[in-house]
C-alpha cells in the first residue's frame, strides 16, 4: 500500500464532488452534464480499485471494468440522443426538452 486508503477515498470524494458540481452548474449544456457524470463515475472507479488494492482482491477491479463497459454504453446512447435532440430543437439546453412531462 503506497498511501493510506483514507487519502485515496478523499481524492475520490473530491472528484465526485467536482462531478456533481459540474452537473449542477451546467444546466444549460447537456454535454457538460454528461462530462460531470463521467467524472463521478471515475470517482467511483477509483474507490473500487483502491478497495481491490487494499484487500488484495480482484473483485474491485472487475467492477471497475463493468463500470467502464456500462459507461461506454450509456455515453454512446446519450450522445446519440443529444444529436437527435439537437437536430430537432437546435439547442443543447436540457430545460428545453420537457415534452415527456404530463401536461
Amino acid at each position: 500500500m503506497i498511501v493510506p486508503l483514507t487519502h485515496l477515498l478523499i481524492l475520490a470524494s473530491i472528484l465526485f464532488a467536482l462531478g456533481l458540481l459540474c452537473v449542477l452548474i451546467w444546466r444549460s449544456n447537456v454535454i457538460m452534464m454528461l462530462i460531470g457524470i463521467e467524472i463521478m463515475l471515475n470517482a467511483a472507479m477509483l474507490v473500487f480499485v483502491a478497495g481491490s488494492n487494499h484487500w488484495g482482491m480482484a473483485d474491485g477491479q472487475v467492477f471497475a471494468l463493468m463500470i467502464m463497459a456500462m459507461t461506454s454504453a450509456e455515453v454512446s446512447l446519450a450522445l446519440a440522443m443529444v444529436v437527435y435532440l439537437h437536430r430537432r430543437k437546435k439547442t443543447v439546453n436540457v430545460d428545453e426538452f420537457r415534452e415527456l412531462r404530463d401536461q
Partner: protein
Amino acid sequence: MEQTLFYIMATVIVIATIFAISEKHPVHAIVYLVTSFFALAVVFYLLAAPLIAMFEVIIYAGAVMVLFMFVIMMLDQGSPEDAERPPLMHYLPALVLTGITLVSLVLLLTNRSPVAAAAVAPRLVSVKEFAITLFNQYGVAIEIISMQLLFAIVGVLYLGRRRKP
C-alpha cells in the same frame, strides 16, 4: 518515490478536473478531462491495477472522450467564444450542496476507526487472476452488461437512422 508520484498525480487530477468543469468551451473541457484521466490511469497503475489503467487510457481517454469530441464537433453550436457561462444563480445552490456533501464525506472518512490497519500486503493482481474472478464469479453480470451494450447499439441505430424527407 511512489508516494510522491501519487500526490503529484492527485494534484494533477483535481486541477485538471476543475479546469475541465469551469471551461465554457466544450473542446477545451474535453482536453482537460483527458489529462485528468491520464493521471487517473497512473494512479490505477500505482494501485497495482495495470489492466484497469490500460482500459482507462484505451476506453475512457481514447474511445469515450473521442466520441464526445466527435459529437461536439458535429453539433453546430456557433462560436464558442460567444457562449455564456452559467449565471450565478446556478452556481450558488450547486456550490452549497456540493460543499456540504464533500465536507460530510471527508469528515466521515477521517473520523473512521482505522479498519485499514489490518490490510494485507499489497500484491499485484495478475491478469490471469482477474480473468478467473471475472468469468467464474461474475458470469451473470457479464451477460447483463453485454445485453446492455446490445440495447445501446440498437438504441443508437434507431436514433441515428436516416429519416425520409
